[in-house]
């Protein structure tokens, strides 16, 4: 990266700087709260309570967290290979199509068969939607940022067409499919616990949360403990070195984007198979874009991504509760807060770095001179 690259202790780089950026984002957020005539402190209290204060709120927080883990991992895998995949929205949208194409006709099969098939469907369709931009980047040098943006819009047009004209049941005016058969619903966590005789609060939190955590571990293993992961990271750090070492950048670019697309597609497991139980319009709701911020805050490490995803999940759920409690606050406020976090933790991540670096290095130099 081109930012100031003075060595800082790891805890400063991974912990302190993101924290300071986050505080800056929240300070600006409180100005927005003041501008609309709400007390920032009271609002934060409501949001914290909404996100963590009671069982069902916590369930919702983890439900949204699941989305952000998938899209955060998706962005991070491509980012390690030096690619900027901002097409998670479109890839997740197509992942929904993959899930629906499994769940609609095969809903009669036992759950243990439907769930793996749906996972494969989501992965295949998400990856397929990432393939064309990946191929064009690898073979023809078309900038993946632009092509993935274009593919988001093409995906949106395609899905509107399919849901309005092809996939909605005959005679229905709603642009959505019929509800999946019960075997094609991912079990909800509170139902699973109820089966074990433990009562927990109801929420749309479902088994895909576990799948997200599994994905995080698998991606961590892949990136740091396999040859493929090593090659991807070399490609991202220095493409010339990768070529010189005999790696094949075009092949690696395509593999990275396929994994990224598949992970984006998994978002549909949570939203479509886990919660809505039918395919509908706009279910991706910006989660793909927020994944960029999740990955950057999590320093593109799966562990960091899970933590950042919890933060964004909490913002989302807390913000929803806040807009429910306070009629003056709309759900758009969540979008503002997300945007500010993306700005300060993402685009402005180096803003406070020079000062912090001076603080730490100053003290170290003094120690050395003495």
């Amino acid at each position, binding site marked *: 990266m081109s930012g100031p690259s003075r060595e800082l202790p790891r805890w400063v780089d991974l912990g302190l700087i993101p924290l300071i950026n986050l505080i800056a984002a929240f300070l600006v957020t409180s100005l927005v709260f003041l*501008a609309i005539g709400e007390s920032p402190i009271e609002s934060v209290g409501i949001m914290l309570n909404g996100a963590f204060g009671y069982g069902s709120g916590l369930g919702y927080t983890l439900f949204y967290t699941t989305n952000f883990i998938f899209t955060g991992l998706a962005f991070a895998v491509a980012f390690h290979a030096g690619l900027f995949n901002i097409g998670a929205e479109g890839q997740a949208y197509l992942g929904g199509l993959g899930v629906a194409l499994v769940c609609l006709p095969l809903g009669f099969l036992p759950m243990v068969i439907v769930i793996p098939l749906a996972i494969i469907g989501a992965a295949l369709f998400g990856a397929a939607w990432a393939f064309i931009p990946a191929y064009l980047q690898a073979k023809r040098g078309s900038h993946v940022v632009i092509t993935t943006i274009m593919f988001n819009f093409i995906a949106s047009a395609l899905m509107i067409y399919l849901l309005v004209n092809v996939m909605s049941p005959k005679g229905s005016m709603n642009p959505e499919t019929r509800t999946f058969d019960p075997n094609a619903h991912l079990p909800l966590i509170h139902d699973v616990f109820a089966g074990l005789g433990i009562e927990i609060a109801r929420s749309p939190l479902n088994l895909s949360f576990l799948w997200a955590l599994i994905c995080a571990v698998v991606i961590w293993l892949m990136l740091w403990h396999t040859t493929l992961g090593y090659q991807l990271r070399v490609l991202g750090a220095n493409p010339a070195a990768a070529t010189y070492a005999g790696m094949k950048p075009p092949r690696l670019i395509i593999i990275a984007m396929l994994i990224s697309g598949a992970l984006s597609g998994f978002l549909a497991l949570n939203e479509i198979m886990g919660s809505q139980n039918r395919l509908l319009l706009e279910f991706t709701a910006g989660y793909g874009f927020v994944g960029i*911020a999740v990955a950057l805050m999590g320093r593109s490490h799966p562990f960091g991504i899970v933590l950042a995803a919890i933060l964004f999940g909490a913002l989302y759920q807390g913000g929803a509760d806040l807009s429910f409690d306070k009629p003056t606050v709309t759900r758009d406020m969540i979008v503002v807060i997300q*945007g500010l976090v993306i700005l300060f933790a993402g685009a402005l991540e180096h803003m406070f770095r020079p000062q912090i670096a001076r603080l730490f290095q100053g003290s170290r130099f003094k120690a050395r001179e003495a």
Partner: protein
Amino acid sequence: MEWLDLIAQVSGSAIRFSVPLLFACLAGLYSERAGVFDIGLEGKMLVGAFTAGTIAALTGSAWLGLLAAILASVLFALIHGFASITHRGNQIVSGVAINFIAAGLTAQLGETWFKLGGQTPQLTNDARFMGYAWPFADALRGVPVLGQIYSQILSGQNILVYLAFLAVPITWWLLYRTRFGLRLRAVGENPAAVDTAGISVPSMRYAAVACCGILCGFAGAYLSIAQSAGFIEHMTAGKGFIALAALIFAKWRPVPAMWACLLFGVLDAISIRLQGVPIAGIGTVPVQLMQAVPYILTVVLLAGFIGHAVAPKAGGVPYVKEK
């Protein structure tokens, strides 16, 4: 001569559709030719549209609305500049942030101030930019071709339409015939050379980003106080991204940018005309396909099948001065 009339009508609406695209596309051109990628055109347009709608409703003056739209949009452009020029942040991430903040803030503030479900109050005609009928426009309506071009395409447009098309030669002249333009293009291709010549790369880039903000303000104001009579939530509806597509389609050049925007405007106008109307031999063309055409064309272009789009060399790369 009915089909001639139809063509005139479609052309008229195509021009109206292409105006916001053209403003935003030229806006992106300044920024990207100077080496600052901007996927936040959408957000800045939205901010401009909201501010124009608000100020025009409060003051009753379209011109004050336009001025406020420009100021607000420039403010957002400078935030993008602050992140990507001063702090060398990632320009794509900054653009995403701008789009999020703009979408959320305009909807929330609209609801807080006006309580109309995110809209600004309906504007009266004096608070908007209305079309001017040119002399004899009605009388010449019946004359085939020339009369129709005169009365339905040239006449009856509002002043922002003429300004948008005037902005094309101005941009061309600025970019290719002035010292400012040469320097602007140079910071986008080889900032180190500009730096060696003793010109500040950051200030050139800030100037470019500010130009981008000004034009996005025009684009936004056009949407809320010329084309419509007020701001509606998320009214840009992806136009900022179509403008970006047009910019790439035009290979970052002003005159082709105008043609690209007109082409996308025509597609838009036709898709509305064709809604549910079967074409002989093809059947009904899905509206969604027509809407996706600009994006598909851009991908095909980027793939190198129609010419080759080469972005400014230093685009997206923050400049680090060597010590």
